[in-house]
């Protein structure tokens, strides 16, 4: 046998046997499709969580970032003394330092008067800590007392801000303090906050009367061009108090991601859901392949009596597994793409269907089907012609 017929003949028989019983085929495809959609959704939610969790730090403008050692993540910082940040000025490579103040508090929906929690970012607008175009162009207006800018990508429960601003309804309350929304920017929500507001450091203190300019949440350091970030980090570590952690930009993003995947159980939950989806799919496909072998035992024994080798049936089972994987994956992918769109439009979570993700899931599904095939093959030994006739 040449290599073509080596696989082609058992695959063709597998295909003919599959399409012979349409009802069973549809049930089998539905099983794989189910596993496929489950894995896609879990993966989608998890990736979306990671993407949105770091939507704020991703936009940060800086080379080094100071945080209190006890800060588990940006959304729940432990404030530290501003003087720690100022001490870094002693290093010749440090060009600029600016404090960033963070606070979670409620924001009143202008239309419905309902209150919902969002994240307030306070910093000197001239420092341009966030790479948000509209905030940078409106930095002068943001210096004015009691002004804020609002994240357009916040959840709709805060109200249709764009429409409200257009008709001049810009006054509302944050933390019982009346402010005016003077513009919009685009950042994105995370699992920690449903919305974002940017304001000046002075206004931040007015919104949060309990806070002081001397206790900051994050210190942002910009270095002179050409200086080594890693070297400055090492130098600063020796100068600063031991309760300060220094991050580079990449380290900060990694730290945030790690919080959501490890410290918060959310990463685990989605990973677990994905594994469960695969296990359920595995059991379904195994059941299908297993009963398939049992049902065709007589036919396999006949073929064996005619001179077909055991390996032919192994290829046949794997071909069946392959066909099920492909036939279940294609509708699974289509369904998942529409569910992703639904999630994006209804839940405002970024859920992109990337080529890499599709390939990954297909590989998962294929290995799942092959593993099921591998487990089912043992049943082939029962197809012994001498015992059957």
């Amino acid at each position, binding site marked *: 046998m040449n290599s073509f017929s080596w696989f082609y003949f058992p695959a063709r028989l597998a295909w003919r046997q599959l399409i012979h019983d349409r009802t069973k085929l549809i049930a089998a495809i539905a099983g794989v499709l189910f596993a496929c959609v489950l894995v896609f959704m879990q993966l989608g939610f998890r990736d979306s969580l990671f993407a949105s969790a770091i939507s704020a730090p991703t936009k940060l403008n800086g080379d080094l970032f100071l945080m209190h050692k006890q800060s588990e993540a940006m959304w729940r910082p432990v404030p530290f003394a501003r003087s720690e940040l100022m001490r870094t000025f002693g290093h010749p490579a440090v060009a600029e330092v600016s404090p960033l103040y963070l606070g979670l508090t409620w924001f009143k929906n202008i239309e419905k008067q309902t209150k919902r929690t969002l994240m307030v970012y306070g910093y000197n607008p001239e420092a341009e800590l966030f790479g948000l175009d509209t905030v940078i162009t409106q930095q002068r207006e943001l210096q004015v007392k009691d002004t804020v800018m609002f994240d357009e990508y916040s959840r709709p429960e805060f109200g249709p801000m764009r429409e409200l601003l257009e008709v001049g309804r810009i006054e509302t309350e944050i933390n019982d303090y009346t402010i005016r929304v003077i513009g919009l920017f685009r950042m994105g929500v995370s699992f920690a906050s449903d919305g974002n507001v940017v304001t000046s450091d002075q206004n931040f203190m007015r919104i949060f009367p309990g806070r002081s300019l001397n206790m900051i949440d994050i210190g942002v350091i910009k270095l002179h061009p050409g200086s080594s970030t890693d070297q400055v980090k090492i130098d600063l570590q020796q100068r600063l108090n031991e309760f300060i952690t220094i991050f580079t930009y990449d380290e900060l993003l990694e730290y945030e991601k790690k919080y959501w995947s490890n410290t918060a159980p959310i990463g685990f939950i989605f990973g677990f859901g994905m594994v469960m989806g695969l296990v359920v799919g595995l059991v379904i496909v195994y059941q299908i392949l297993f009963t398939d072998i049992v049902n065709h035992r007589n036919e396999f024994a006949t073929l064996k009596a005619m001179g077909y080798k055991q390996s032919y049936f192994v290829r046949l089972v794997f071909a069946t597994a392959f066909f099920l994987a492909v036939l279940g994956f294609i509708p699974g992918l289509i369904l998942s793409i529409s569910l992703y769109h639904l999630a994006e439009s209804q839940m405002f979570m970024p859920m992109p269907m990337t080529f890499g993700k599709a390939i990954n899931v297909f590989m998962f599904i294929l290995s799942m089907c092959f593993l099921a095939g591998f487990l089912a093959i043992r049943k082939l030994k029962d197809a012994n012609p*001498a015992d059957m006739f």
Partner: protein
Amino acid sequence: MSTVINVRNLNFSFDQDEQVLPVLKNMNIAIQKGEIVIMTGPSGSGKTTFLTIVGALRQAIEGSVEVLGQQLINSSEQTKVSIRQQTGYIFQQHNLLKSLTAQQNVSMTLEMFNDMSEKERLDRATDMLKAVGLGDRLDHKPDKLSGGERQRVSIARALAGRPKIVLADEPTASLDKQSGQEAVTILKHLAKESGASILLVTHDYRILDIADRVVELEDGMIRSN
């Protein structure tokens, strides 16, 4: 005439619950090329067991079973597969693959060998089905065929590979008198045409007339030869 099956002093027993049940006792039989031999005997006399040993489906360990010049006693898997491929086996039930058409079923015999193109295989299958009188049933699946037609498809399947030996295990058992007679007549005709030997096991006494020789198996021994 050359001997295609030569069985000498064959003993065979089943091990069941630590009990040894002898089935074949010191059996001797030789079948020549082109010969049609019918083996009869009461059920439980070991006919089918004997057939599965000669067809290389069952491993025997005592005596000598030479089929087409190869020794099947304590044979390797490779030897067994090779004998199976050179043997046409007709089962008591038709044992056709129910997802395949008549033509595809017959073609399965030829797919084991890589010496034909798909068209040649299908043409040969068509010819074989015409020869068994089913030229108009090529695309029918087994569930659309009558019992007699199914058995004729399985005869076509057994003979499509031009085997030197055809082994048949009660091929008429599930057929009525007329279709049973038809099936074995076709079988005899095709075998004579290609010079194949037939060993047919049956207790259907209506078909004994097609045989060149009838042997009776009783209690694991050949009684009349």
